[in-house]
């Protein structure tokens, strides 16, 4: 039998044109839409050499804008992680009137134009408004045209990220593990810390990083809320716009490259985390 099989060559499998075709289309699309623009901006930023790029980025005004973007996003991420976890927990573990509505509202920030977000915050916290003037007069807190406004805007637009990455994992948790811990003498706090939280850590970090990455580049709401005051409330994205408008393309590209680099490394990290969660 084996000699026979060897004697007759196996029929050649047909060339899978269809499969190659589909891949080709997808890759081309990706290249045209994502990779080529990224390459172009990289080339543009490095056109005068790496030294010039660093110089552009470390200009005090650019450097301050980048730092502002990073620290406001950082503060937002911490608040978002805590409150997002809490919201997800409430949505998964409790049933109350309006549960379905609340669950739907979580995604609303994804759909609302960010400019509108900015307008809403100005209307609510603006210095001429009741809440805004009360905060300023009674507590000395300026919200609009100041970093707190930026953080508020970022909190609003990134609200869904943590909730939606924690929720499915929390939903899939086996609650008898919590019962088991209770029979072993663990109190509610211990059960949360040792049983519920550990499996949520990775999705929590992943959601938090996503919201951080999203926040770094936020423009629409901030341009309205922050007032664009250099060395005070001008974020990196708004700075880039200013550089483009004043025809300093190099400065714009350089800061853009830094933002892209941060976002890209965060996305890689999130991707790695997601794969660990799925395992």
């Amino acid at each position, binding site marked *: 039998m084996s000699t026979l099989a060897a004697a007759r060559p196996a029929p050649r499998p047909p060339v899978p044109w269809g499969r190659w075709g589909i891949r080709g289309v997808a890759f081309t699309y990706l290249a045209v839409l994502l990779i080529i623009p990224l390459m172009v901006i990289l080339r543009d930023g490095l056109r005068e050499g790496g030294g010039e790029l660093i110089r552009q980025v470390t200009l005090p005004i650019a450097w301050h804008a980048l730092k502002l973007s990073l620290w406001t996003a950082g503060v937002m991420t911490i608040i978002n992680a805590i409150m997002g976890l809490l919201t997800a927990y409430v949505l998964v573990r409790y049933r109350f009137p309006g549960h379905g509505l609340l669950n739907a509202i979580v995604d609303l920030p994804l759909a609302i134009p960010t400019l509108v977000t900015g307008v809403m915050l100005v209307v609510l916290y603006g210095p001429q408004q009741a809440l805004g003037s009360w905060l300023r007069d009674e507590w000395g807190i300026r919200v609009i045209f100041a970093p707190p406004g930026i953080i508020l805007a970022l909190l609003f637009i990134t609200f869904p990220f943590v909730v939606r990455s924690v929720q499915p994992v929390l939903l899939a948790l*086996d609650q*008898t*593990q919590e*019962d*088991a*811990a*209770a*029979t*072993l*003498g*663990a*109190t509610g706090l*211990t059960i949360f810390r*040792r*049983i519920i939280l*550990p*499996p949520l850590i990775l999705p929590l970090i992943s959601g938090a990083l996503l919201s951080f990455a999203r926040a770094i580049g936020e423009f629409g709401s901030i341009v309205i809320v922050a007032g664009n005051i250099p060395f005070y409330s001008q974020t990196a994205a708004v700075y880039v716009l200013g550089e483009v408008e004043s025809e300093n393309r190099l400065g714009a590209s350089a800061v853009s490259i830094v933002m892209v680099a941060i976002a890209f490394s965060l996305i890689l990290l999130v991707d790695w985390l997601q794969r660990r969660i799925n395992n």
Partner: protein
Amino acid sequence: MSIILENLSKRYEGHPVVNQVSLEIADGEFFVLLGSSGSGKTTVLSIIAGLVSTEQGRVILHGRDVTYLPTQQRNVGYVFQHYALFQHMTVADNIEFGLRVRKMPAAARQQRRDELLELVGLTGLGSRMPRQISGGQQQRVALARALAHRPDVLLLDEPLGALDAKIRTELRRTLKTIQRELGITTILVTHDQEEAFELADRLGVMSFGRLLEVGPPDQLYRRPQSEFVATFLGTANLLVGEAAYNGIQVGPRHFDLDSQALPVEEGQRVQVLIRPEDVALAVAADQLDCPPLGQGIVEHTVFSGSFERSRLRLPALPGVRPIAPPPAYGDDAILIEVTRTQDQVSRLPIQPEQKVWVGVRRLHALAHPGLRFLMPTDGSPLAEAALAYGGHLARMAHARVTLLAYGMDAAAGQKHLQACKEKLGGGLVALDLRQTEKPLAAGLAEEVERQPVDLVFLGFAPHAPQFRLAEAILPLGEHHLLLVPPGAAAPSQVLVCVASGEPGKEDIRFTARLVRHVGAEAAVLAVISSPQTNETTRQRVDRFLSQGVKTLELLGVPAETVIRTGPVSQEIQQQIAAAPYDLLVFGSPLPDKSGEISLDGVISQVLTAVPHLPTLIVRSAGPERADTVGTLYAVQEVF
């Protein structure tokens, strides 16, 4: 006593899942709670552990009332059916969890963990993650974890349920050995009889939230006190016979029995339990080494390893009603299950269709529960009429009666109940006087939860609120409902309408059980609504009806069949006009998705048209549903 449960009750969505369960478990005892799924056994365990609260009653562990203590302070060990291991911790961390919570020093903790790993035979696997070990090993870890903090009691919720047969047997032995070694009081919940028999020092059988019987496994198996336990544990041949002088009469046959083993007085009906292994077979009656029951025909035999199981058909015996195995519909044969050892088989091999003599080596008598009636009364003329009607039927059918006074205050209720008692007079097997201050449906729900009944009598006039009341009462328990209009006389001619959309065998069986004692006759009516029905369907309906007639006659009710063609409710009314019927029987409509029953349609049309006729609405029995579906479908096609 390690564990004392007093009167535990729990309901979900209004249905009682645990219903007044009381139990005492001795130190070091291995107690098994056995029941089918949904019987409430796991809920009992959760109540003991404090994972579920009880609505009433108390839980006492080692003399400590823990009813209102949180789970954490009850010091129980709990093993869950699906292990519930902490997936993100190693085996060792899982086992040490309870010790860490108690802040035990690391050295002592590790020593205890190693002891436990050795105890459950998992030494060396401490550093594995739960998903890296097999199901059987995971359950051993769960057991070790539950034992680590030296709990007062060990609670096991179907711990072996998710494992395959071989590992289950092995783990069962491990479990028993460990329990003996530690001497820890243990409750195990299972639906697996073999497991229950093998592990239990004592056994409790649960059904629909009630703890029916408690005792050592052999006692419950050989001498059960209730029909449910007799048929639930192992295989049972269960017949209704009669208590006689020094024994039991099963038709013409007399079997000796210690008089002290008789649950009732001479002349009363008893249920006779014959276990399959206590049935003897022989070619001739004189070759039996025990009293004969009769000659039967082998229906089939099945080889099952160490045993051979077979089923035999015996001709009907006068006055003997088989309960289990359930007799075929419209068939009067008595079916007998036999289990023989291979040794016995080799001495007398049997073949299907062969004739053999059947003898009984050992039997057990249980009190026959008989029927139980509930009659609500508020003193109204309608209620009074129902009371008189029901009281008469109860006397004739030897039924136990509960009177439920409602719609009046406590003093008036007592007075009214006493008056009713006098009016009913003597001759009742048992009379229970109860009172509720709630509206009828709510009070009745409570009452049938305390003590299920077979039949509720409701004074009835065909008005909308009365229909709604009937609809509310029907789904409250497992009972049927008899609507009694004023001035009704005891039934003598019964019309069983299987044409109302739900023709079940239960209609006919229950009707027969009820009216056989009053010497009534019956007609079984089917209405074929579509004029185009072909001959085959007509024959099928006819066959179904004749089986019903046969069943009625077997139970002592002479009967005939009637088939009519035309609009259903109109045809029923015409049939009613054709003969002096005095009791109508309908099958209850099926409940809708939310469990509610509507009488709108044929039943309400007929009742409105003939308001003077008492009407029995029979619910289909749950477990019998499966075997009626075939016929049900066959007849429903017609309408």
